[in-house]
C-alpha cells in the first residue's frame, strides 16, 4: 500500500469513527445503555488514533518530499529546510483542516479516556457533542479538502512554502492558535452537557475552568506570537493592525477571558448565569466565525485572505448549527440560569464582575462589527466601507483601560456591598504609585490623555496586584514563616489558583504598558545613504558600509551592512530583503536591536541595483519587548494556576473539588440549602 493511500484510509476510518461516536453515542445515551456508552468511549480513542496516523503519514510525505501529493506539492519544495517542511502541515487549507481535526480528536479522546471516570455525568454527552465536530472536520478532510489528493503528472519538485511563513515564530504561532481555538470547544461542550443533564454547578465549574484556562493560555500566547511574527517579518514597524485575521483571533480571546472570570462568579456566588453561559458558548462560536473569516476570504481587505479549497462556507454552516443548538439548550434549561443571589449594592465585587463582562463583550462587539463593516456596508448601502486602524484604537482603548481599572480595584472591593472611601484607603499605595508613574511618564514626554491616564491606571493596577502578594506574605510572616521570600513563596504556592491569577494580571498589565509605550514617541526616519554616510536617529548613529548579496538555498537576500553606535556601545546589523522566485514583493529581513526601553528597527527599503545607494527606514519603537515579556509571564502564570490541585487527591472529581469553596459553602448555610433543595 502506498503511503498516500494509507493516509486516505486513515481519514475514512476516522470519519466512520466520528459518525459512530456521534450517532451511536447519542443513541446509547437515550437508551442509557452502559455497554454501548463504553464502546463510544473506545471509538473516540480510535478516531484519535486514526487521525494521528493520518497526520504522521502526511508529515512523512512532507519530510520525504512526495510531490505527487497535493498538500506536499502546494506547500513545500526541495530547497525547504526540514523544520519548515514539517511546519508546512498547516501551511494550507487541507493540512490545516486535518490538523484541526487531529487536535480535536486528541481532546475528545482525553475526555473519553481520562475525563469519563471523573466527570461521568457529563462526559457521555460531551463526547458525542465533540464527536459531531469531529464528524464535520473528518467530513471536510474526506470530501472537500483531502490532503492526500494526488497531483496529475509526476512532479519532481513542489511550489514551496510561502516565504512569509518561513519564520521560526510562524512555525509556533499556528499550532498554538489551533490548540487554543479548538480547545474552546471542550468547555462549551461541557457547559451545554452540564446544563442539559442538570449537573449542579459545583460539579462542572472546575472542569470547565481548567479546559478554558488551557485553551485561553494558548490563545493568548498565539495572539502575541502573531504580533511578534508581523513585527519581525512584515517590516512596517508595528505588531498589530486590526487586520480581519488578527481580529478573528482576538474575538474568541475576549469572550474567553470574560468567561474565565464569569466562571469565578458562578463558583463563588452563582450569579450572572446567563452571562456565563452565553460567554462560554460564544467563545466557541466565535472561533468558527474566525475560521470563516480567514478561510473564506469574505473580507477582501485582508492581506491574508487564504482562499482556495473553499472550506470557508462550511464553517458558516457549522456555526449556524452550533448557534441553534446552543440557543435551544440554553432556552430549555433557562430555569437553571436563574441567579442564586441577587445583586446587593451597586458598588460591590459583583458589580465589578458584571462590568467586566459588559466591557469585554462590548469590545468584542465593536471588533466584530468593525471587522464585518465592509460586508455590512456593502449589504446596506451598496458601498464597501473599511474602518481604519484609528477606529479600532479609539473605540477599544478606553474600554481596555476601564478593564484595567476594574482589575486593580477588585481586590479591595468586598462582596455584596462596598464603600468607595474604604477601597481607596486600602489602595492608597497603589494609587500613589500610579500617580507617580503618571507624573514620570509626563516628564518623559507622554502627552495624550490616553497615554498618561493609561500609565496611571495600569501602574495603579500593578501596585494593587503587588499589594495582594505583599499582604499574603505578611500574613505568613505573622504566622511565623520567615524570611519574607520564603513567606511569599509559601503564600503563592499554597493558593496557586489565586496567585497564578494575580500573576496573569501582572502579565497582562506588562503587555498593556508595552502597548501604551510603543504608541508613544516612536520615531521613524527614512533616508537614502551612500557607503560611509551616517543616519542619526534618537541616540543611535548608524553607518552604512555597503550592500552584500547572500545566496541561500532557494532564495537570495540583499543585505545592507550597518554599524550602529549608541554611546560607547557598537553593533553590526544587516537588514535585508529576500527575493523568492515569483513573489511580487521582496520579503523584508528586518534587523531589530531589541532592548527593554526601546527597539531599534531597521528596514532596507530599496537600493540601486547597479550602485551602492540604499534607502533605509529606521524606527525607534519604545517598549515593544514588554509585550513579549508579558506573554512569557502570562504563560508561566497560566501554568502556575493550572497546577493547582494536582497529585493523587485530584484523581476523582469529588476529592478534586477545592476545599476552600466547600468550607466557604458550609459558612453560608442559608443560601446553600436553598440551592441544594
Amino acid at each position: 500500500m502506498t503511503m498516500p493511500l494509507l493516509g486516505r484510509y486513515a481519514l475514512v476510518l476516522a470519519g466512520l469513527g466520528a459518525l459512530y461516536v456521534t450517532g451511536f453515542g447519542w443513541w446509547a445515551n437515550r437508551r442509557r445503555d452502559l455497554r454501548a456508552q463504553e464502546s463510544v468511549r473506545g471509538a473516540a480513542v480510535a478516531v484519535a488514533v486514526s487521525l494521528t496516523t493520518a497526520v504522521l503519514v502526511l508529515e512523512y510525505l512532507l519530510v520525504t518530499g512526495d510531490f505527487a501529493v497535493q498538500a506536499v506539492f502546494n506547500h513545500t519544495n526541495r530547497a525547504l529546510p526540514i523544520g519548515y517542511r514539517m511546519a508546512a502541515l498547516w501551511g494550507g487549507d487541507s493540512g490545516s483542516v486535518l490538523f484541526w481535526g487531529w487536535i480535536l480528536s486528541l481532546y475528545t479522546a482525553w475526555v473519553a479516556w481520562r475525563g469519563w471516570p471523573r466527570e461521568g455525568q457529563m462526559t457521555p454527552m460531551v463526547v458525542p457533542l465533540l464527536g459531531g465536530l469531529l464528524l464535520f472536520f473528518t467530513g471536510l478532510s474526506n470530501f472537500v479538502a483531502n490532503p492526500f489528493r494526488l497531483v496529475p503528472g509526476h512532479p519532481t519538485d513542489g511550489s514551496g512554502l510561502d516565504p512569509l511563513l518561513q519564520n521560526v515564530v510562524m512555525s509556533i504561532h499556528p499550532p498554538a492558535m489551533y490548540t487554543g481555538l479548538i480547545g474552546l470547544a471542550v468547555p462549551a461542550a461541557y457547559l451545554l452537557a452540564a446544563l442539559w443533564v442538570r449537573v449542579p454547578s459545583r460539579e462542572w465549574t472546575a472542569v470547565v475552568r481548567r479546559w478554558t484556562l488551557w485553551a485561553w493560555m494558548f490563545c493568548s500566547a498565539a495572539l502575541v506570537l502573531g504580533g511578534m511574527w508581523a513585527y519581525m517579518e512584515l517590516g512596517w514597524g508595528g505588531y498589530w493592525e486590526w487586520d480581519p485575521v488578527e481580529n478573528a483571533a482576538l474575538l474568541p480571546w475576549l469572550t474567553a477571558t470574560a468567561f474565565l472570570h464569569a466562571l469565578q462568579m458562578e463558583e463563588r456566588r452563582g450569579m450572572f448565569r446567563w452571562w456565563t453561559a452565553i460567554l462560554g458558548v460564544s467563545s466557541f462560536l466565535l472561533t468558527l466565525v474566525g475560521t470563516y473569516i480567514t478561510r473564506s476570504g469574505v473580507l477582501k481587505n485582508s492581506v491574508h485572505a487564504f482562499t482556495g479549497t473553499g472550506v470557508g462556507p462550511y464553517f458558516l454552516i457549522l456555526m449556524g448549527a452550533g448557534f441553534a443548538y446552543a440557543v435551544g439548550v440554553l432556552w430549555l434549561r433557562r430555569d437553571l440560569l436563574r441567579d442564586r443571589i441577587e445583586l446587593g449594592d451597586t458598588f460591590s465585587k459583583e458589580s465589578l464582575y458584571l462590568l467586566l463582562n459588559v466591557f469585554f463583550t462590548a469590545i468584542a462587539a465593536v471588533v466584530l462589527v468593525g471587522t464585518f463593516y465592509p460586508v455590512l456596508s456593502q449589504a446596506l448601502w451598496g458601498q464597501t466601507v473599511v474602518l481604519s486602524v484609528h477606529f479600532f484604537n479609539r473605540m477599544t482603548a478606553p474600554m481596555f483601560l476601564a478593564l484595567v481599572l476594574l482589575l486593580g480595584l477588585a481586590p479591595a472591593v468586598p462582596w455584596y456591598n462596598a464603600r468607595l472611601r474604604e477601597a481607596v484607603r486600602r489602595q492608597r499605595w497603589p494609587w500613589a504609585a500610579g500617580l507617580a508613574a503618571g507624573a514620570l511618564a509626563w516628564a518623559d514626554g507622554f502627552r495624550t490623555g490616553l497615554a498618561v491616564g493609561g500609565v496611571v491606571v495600569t501602574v495603579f493596577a500593578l501596585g494593587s496586584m503587588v499589594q495582594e502578594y505583599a499582604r499574603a506574605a505578611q500574613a505568613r510572616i505573622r504566622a511565623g514563616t520567615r524570611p519574607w521570600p520564603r513567606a511569599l513563596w509559601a503564600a503563592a504556592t499554597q493558593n496557586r489558583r489565586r496567585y497564578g491569577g494575580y500573576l496573569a494580571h501582572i502579565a497582562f498589565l506588562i503587555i498593556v504598558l508595552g502597548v501604551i509605550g510603543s504608541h508613544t514617541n516612536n520615531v521613524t526616519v527614512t533616508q537614502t545613504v551612500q557607503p560611509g554616510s551616517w543616519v542619526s536617529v534618537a541616540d543611535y548613529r548608524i553607518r552604512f558600509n555597503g550592500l552584500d548579496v547572500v545566496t541561500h538555498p532557494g532564495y537570495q537576500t540583499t543585505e545592507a551592512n550597518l554599524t550602529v553606535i549608541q554611546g560607547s556601545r557598537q553593533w553590526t546589523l544587516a537588514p535585508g530583503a529576500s527575493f523568492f522566485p515569483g513573489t511580487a514583493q521582496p520579503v523584508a529581513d528586518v534587523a531589530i536591536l531589541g532592548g527593554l526601553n526601546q527597539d531599534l528597527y531597521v528596514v532596507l527599503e530599496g537600493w540601486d541595483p547597479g550602485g551602492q545607494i540604499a534607502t533605509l527606514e529606521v524606527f525607534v519603537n519604545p517598549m515593544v519587548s514588554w509585550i513579549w515579556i508579558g506573554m512569557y509571564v502570562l504563560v508561566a502564570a497560566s501554568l502556575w494556576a493550572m497546577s493547582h490541585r494536582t497529585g493523587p487527591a485530584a484523581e476523582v472529581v469529588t476529592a478534586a473539588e477545592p476545599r476552600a469553596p466547600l468550607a466557604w459553602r458550609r459558612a453560608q448555610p442559608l443560601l446553600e440549602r436553598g440551592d441544594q433543595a
Partner: protein
Amino acid sequence: MSKKLRLQVGAAVIVGALAFIVLHGANRFTQYFVSVQQYRTHYAQYRGQVLRVEGTMLASSVHYNSATSTLRFTLMGDGQSLPVEYQGPMPSEQFQNADAIVEGQMNAQGVFVAQKLMVKCPDHYTPATSAAAG
C-alpha cells in the same frame, strides 16, 4: 427607584452610549474600498479622499526609481487602469501580475499616490519558474 430598574436603566445607558460612540466613530474613521473600475467611473464622488483601491498590479508596468525609491505601476481592473506611485521597497525582478490593494489619493497630475501597498498573498505560493505545473 427599585434596584432592578436602576440596573436596567444603567445597562440601557451603557448600551446606548456605546452604540453612539461606535456609530460616531464609524463615521469618522471610514475609508471607501473600491475597485479600479468603480473608482474611475464614479471619480467625482471620491475626489480628494483617501481610500483603498483594489486591482491587479500589472507586472510589465512596474518601474522602480532607486534614487528616490519610488515605485510606479499600473493597477488594472475590468479594462480600466490607474497609474500608481508608491514610495517603498523595490519589487522583485521576476514579477507576476498580482492582486493588490493601494491606499492613498489622487494627486493633481492624475497619479494615485499610495501611502500603503498591500500585495495579497495567494492561496498557495506559486513560483514563476515552476516547471511542474499541476
